[in-house]
């Protein structure tokens, strides 16, 4: 456990030792504002809630989270430090977990920095802060799922650009799989349960309820098991092709 903490600290502080952290945080807050006010018609809706803010999170995460995750392992490979890290007395799972948690905590900070929206909505009306809190937690959970995918893709390559593009595409697949576009493609030939299965893999179908403040167990289980699966895959990838 203490190894996880050490690795977590190193990774987490690593974000702030370069301009990456500040650029990322600024863009995240800026874009979430744009989405909320312009595309989500925050004011025109006339409701004191943050649904316009949360409903765009899957799209925001789609390209911002892979940018956060791409360096996790690709940079270790490129710099050769993976050899240093994995010959220290740490297990691969500790390294995978420490890195993931650092990136997750960082995305949590990005979310926290959107607090002016929460202040705004409370200033403008009587917002249900329980719902908002639930949505924040749900959003963080979804960010974790995106990150776990990104971390695994980052483990596959020494090139951060490739890691970014591949994880964005995979995440896109997970977001889109609830869309009629994708489902129609399957429903024309596949049996109903396949269509259901594909649909149930969608981030959107699981996040929609959450963005309205309803946290259901099955949605939580979905995101948590998705995180567990991709972190496991991450560890396997590192174990199998450490030296490549």
């Amino acid at each position: 456990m203490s190894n996880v903490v050490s690795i977590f600290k190193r990774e987490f502080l690593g974000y702030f030792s370069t301009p990456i952290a500040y650029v990322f945080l600024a863009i995240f807050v800026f874009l979430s504002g744009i989405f909320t006010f312009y595309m989500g018609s925050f004011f025109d809706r006339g409701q004191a809630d943050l649904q316009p803010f949360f409903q765009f999170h899957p799209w925001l995460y789609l390209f911002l989270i892979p940018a956060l995750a791409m360096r996790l392992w690709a940079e270790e490979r490129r710099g050769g430090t993976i050899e240093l890290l994995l010959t220290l007395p740490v297990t691969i799972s500790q390294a995978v977990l420490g890195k993931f948690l650092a990136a997750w905590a960082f995305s949590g900070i990005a979310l926290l920095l959107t607090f002016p929206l929460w202040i705004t909505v409370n200033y403008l009306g009587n917002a249900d802060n329980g719902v908002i809190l639930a949505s924040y937690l749900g959003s963080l959970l979804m960010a974790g799922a995106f990150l776990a995918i990104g971390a695994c893709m980052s483990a596959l390559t020494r090139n951060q650009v490739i890691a970014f593009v591949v994880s964005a595409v995979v995440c896109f697949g997970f977001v889109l799989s609830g869309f009629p576009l994708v489902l129609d493609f399957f429903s024309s030939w596949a049996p109903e349960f396949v269509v259901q299965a594909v649909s149930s893999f969608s981030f959107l179908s699981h996040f929609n309820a959450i963005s309205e403040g309803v946290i259901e167990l099955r949605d939580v289980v979905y995101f948590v098991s998705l995180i567990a699966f991709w972190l496991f895959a991450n560890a396997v990838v590192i174990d199998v092709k450490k030296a490549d």
Partner: protein
Amino acid sequence: MIEIRNLSKHFGDLTAVDDVSFQVARGDVLGFLGPNGAGKSTTMKMITGFIAPDAGSVVVGGEDIAVHPVEVKRRIGYLPEGAPLYGDMTVKGFLRFIAEIRGYRGGECDQRVDRAVELVSLGSVLGKPIETLSKGFKRRVGLAQAILHDPEVLILDEPTDGLDPNQKHDVRELIRGMAEDKIIVLSTHILEEVDAVCNRAIIIAEGRIVSDGTPAELVARSIMHNAISITVLGNAANGIRDALAGLPNVRGVEIDEEAGERVRLHVFPEGGAMLIEEVGRMVRERGWEIEELRVERGQLDEVFRNVTVGEGVMV
């Protein structure tokens, strides 16, 4: 004690390490020699548990690294090839990270870092980001990281690569100073280094051990070992050569250089015999005027070339 048993590793069709076995005991400094691509680094990566061998085992202090990887890694300090480091961290931040991972906390963590910093003289760059340091400093940070926990086993992949002669000297002094109670394995392609710090040398070529012995034994395999180099003033080169060739225990005489009024020859002994007395007597008896007369120790790079280029080259 580390025991390497029948280690093999393949990358696709390439056999990087082929049935390598050896043991190193406490107090030994083992030099790992070989041409580039011979399998030195791959062997070291397997000893330190970074990659798993296809066959064979690595046992450190009685524990198999495949069975107890974390315990074995605790006993080892490792400087990987090229000394990879987290460039965005400061020297101090990096060493503290290593100390924490090695299980040190609080005051002991500081002590360990301070001691390692002192041993490799990093005091002047403690607060600087590693990526801004010169190659020599980076290598020393890598060394500091490896020796921070005062490990029983030290594996150093080309520890002096890219250092200037003074820095090389410092690193060798450091290694010699630690040698007594440690097991040290270092790879190099600088042959003088083996002579300077190692008490044992293994030459590896195409993944196999082709020679294993002390540096002195290695040198003794040179055809120049105990040969006499002599420079005589005069121009009767052939006469001098024939006279020297007539001495007992002489295997052959070679004219190395004939320039104007002087001739330089090498006298090769039979079976490493000492010839200096006989040659000296002949010089006096014949009244040759000599400019140079010395016994050669032998040349490591010649031995290295002979054992690594393949059989049949050695006379």
